[in-house]
């Protein structure tokens, strides 16, 4: 017995695009495919080579009208790993979960799963509106794979968790949607498989209930069970998981710690990444006969240009400049302001400039804006450069517009969805003392 919970080898899932019933296409494909069935291996090779010559993208495994939702996936997950699977829409996260929970079969490769799998791709699957809450607990529980005895044993816990005691004998079509969801999650939360697969189901109910769900999920993962968790809610993923797998186009991009995976994810998220790097040509560089700005970049901790940052990420600003004179008093200043133009702060590099780094030559100067400082909102960064009492070399100019997203570190236990007030929202330490 190894310590493995899930091993996949070359796992792949191919889907057909478009209509399932397209007779003209099906017939056309059949005509094209039919002779190939009778070809010998050698002939088939020759055929493929010929095809490839005509069409450089030809791939015998990807006939037209199909795509791979997962491809060449090799994965090893150990027992009691709590793994967050992240990636943008269409990256194959849900397909992976569906394959592992046996809902759909893979096209290539295989997976070995050690232990009972409980999958939670949706809460309340099979709930029947005409049945009472009590009846639905049994129905839904057995659909999820619990035995009747299990459900009976946990019945009181489930009811208490759902907070719908009073309505247990009411048909659930009379429930509010919030009540239904609470009941559904309560059943799901009491599944006790060795391997739990969860897809984006925590986004249910009000904030207080969400919080309760998160707490329950944390309990589950700390009990030493294997959990695979998919969510777009990065703060939920971060707080639950220790390992992170980032998928893109059905392939693993990184398989590392959750924090690294999330910052990689944030890096790939940014479509305006080009706006995070400004380069000036010779002759167009801002500056004068003292200093000339060559390049300005907005970077993530991992050194990727981007303009969308998580609240838990540092923001790096790097400037590359040419100094033409020995000038220890030179100062580059960056100013961060809200998108409405209100200054948040302004900071310069002057006191870090000494006799060693102030001669003529090429330099970079960079600064990190700490994480857990900014609020979840839009900001802009501008720059100016000058030597006090001598001259302003670069007048104030707007460099970047950036967005900060994600959980606001405001001291609340809830991850409030509403905008949190304040130009910044720094993480502060409170101290609570009992004095009586």
């Amino acid at each position: 017995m190894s310590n493995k919970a899930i091993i996949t080898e070359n796992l792949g899932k191919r889907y057909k695009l478009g209509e399932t019933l397209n007779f003209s296409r099906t017939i056309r494909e059949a005509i094209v495919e039919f002779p190939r069935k009778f070809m010998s291996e050698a002939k088939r090779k020759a055929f493929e080579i010929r095809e490839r010559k005509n069409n450089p993208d030809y791939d015998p495994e990807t006939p037209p009208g199909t795509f791979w939702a997962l491809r060449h996936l090799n994965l090893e997950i150990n027992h009691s790993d709590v793994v967050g699977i992240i990636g943008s829409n269409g990256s194959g996260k849900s397909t992976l979960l569906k394959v592992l929970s046996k809902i759909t079969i893979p096209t290539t490769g295989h997976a070995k799963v050690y232990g009972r799998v409980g999958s939670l791709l949706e809460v309340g699957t099979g709930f029947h509106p005409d049945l009472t809450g009590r009846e639905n607990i049994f129905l839904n529980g057995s659909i999820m794979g619990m035995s009747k005895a299990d459900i009976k044993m946990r019945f009181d816990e489930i009811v208490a968790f759902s907070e719908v005691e009073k309505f247990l004998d009411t048909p659930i079509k009379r429930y509010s949607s919030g009540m239904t969801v609470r009941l559904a999650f309560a059943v799901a939360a009491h599944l006790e498989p060795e391997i739990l697969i969860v897809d984006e189901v925590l986004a249910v109910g009000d904030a207080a209930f969400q919080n309760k769900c998160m707490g329950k999920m944390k309990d589950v993962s700390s009990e030493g069970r294997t959990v695979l968790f998919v969510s777009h809610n990065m703060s939920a993923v971060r707080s639950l998981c220790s390992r992170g797998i980032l998928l893109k186009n059905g392939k693993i991009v990184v398989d590392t710690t959750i924090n690294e995976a999330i910052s990689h994810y944030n890096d790939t998220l940014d479509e305006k990444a080009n706006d995070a790097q400004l380069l000036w040509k010779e002759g167009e560089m801002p500056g004068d006969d003292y200093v000339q700005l060559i390049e300005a970049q907005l970077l993530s901790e991992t050194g990727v240009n981007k303009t969308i940052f998580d609240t838990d990420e540092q923001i790096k600003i790097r400037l590359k400049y040419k100094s033409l004179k020995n000038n220890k008093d030179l100062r580059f200043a960056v100013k961060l302001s809200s998108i409405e133009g209100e200054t948040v702060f302004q900071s310069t590099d002057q006191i870090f400039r000494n006799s060693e780094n102030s001669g003529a030559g090429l330099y970079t100067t960079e600064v990190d804006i700490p994480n857990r400082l900014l609020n979840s909102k839009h900001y802009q960064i501008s720059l100016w450069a000058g030597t006090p009492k001598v001259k302003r070399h670069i007048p104030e100019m707007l460099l970047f517009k950036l967005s900060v997203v994600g959980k606001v570190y405001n001291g609340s236990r809830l991850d409030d969805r509403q905008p949190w007030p304040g130009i910044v929202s720094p993480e502060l330490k409170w101290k609570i003392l009992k004095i009586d």
Partner: protein
Amino acid sequence: MSKDTADKYVQIIQPREKQKKIDWQELYRFRELFGILVWRDIKVKYKQTALGALWAIIVPFVHMLIFTVIFGNVAKLPTDGLHPQLFYYAGLLLWTYFATAVSISGASLVNGKAFLTKIYFPRLIMPVSPTLSALVDFTIGFVILVAMLFYYEQAIDYTIIFLPFFVAIAVVSASGVGMIFASLNVKYRDVAFALPFIIQIWMYGTVLVPFSKLPPAWGDFRYLYGLNPMSGAVEGFRWCLLHSNMLTTRMLDGKVVEIPVDPPLLLVTVSTVSAAFLLWLGIKWFKKMESTFADIV
């Protein structure tokens, strides 16, 4: 978790070619779910209806009245020497069971789309459970049949002990046919339109004509009638309930006597084989299509 449990539940997930057999062990593990789905179907069937389970009686009973008037009184079709009311109600009762089971079963996968795409359990449970829950209606309707037997002063014979066998033929056929239509329905929604139509035509072919009135000139070819498994089931069902009144004349010691008809043995045998074949075909077909359900439903 204990490592033993993990060892016990090693599952290999792989492409289709290698997994067409029924996993009996797994089916056994999901027996409770099977029971619960049957229970759910029964429980919700007549929710929010004014007449409730009366519908289980109304449908075959009204059908019977229409058949009696049109085919019995107007068209004067033979009814094996039985009261047309009894003849048609008995046939229609078993038929109604079959028709209900097949139509619910045929729609089970499409209606249970959420199951197919969101949760795993052996899919075979879905088309099979309606064939059991529909038995409840059958039982209710059967009470009326018994009442009718008393009303028409029809003695209940020892042959009634064979009744479960004929019902079983209907259950087996309904499962087989249900599975075929259910899996076809996933890909071709035409089934939703064709199925009621097919069932309607099939009914006339089953309930109206007793085997005894097939032209004797056809000889043994008449037994091909049993390829429709429901014809053997209905014929046998009528026989086991109404045996003592189904009389035939025979020469005995030079005298013409009326004796009860023999059991339709050969016909029932053909139908039993046919029902078993349908079940086999249904399972085979279902297992073949099963792996694509979640992707195309």
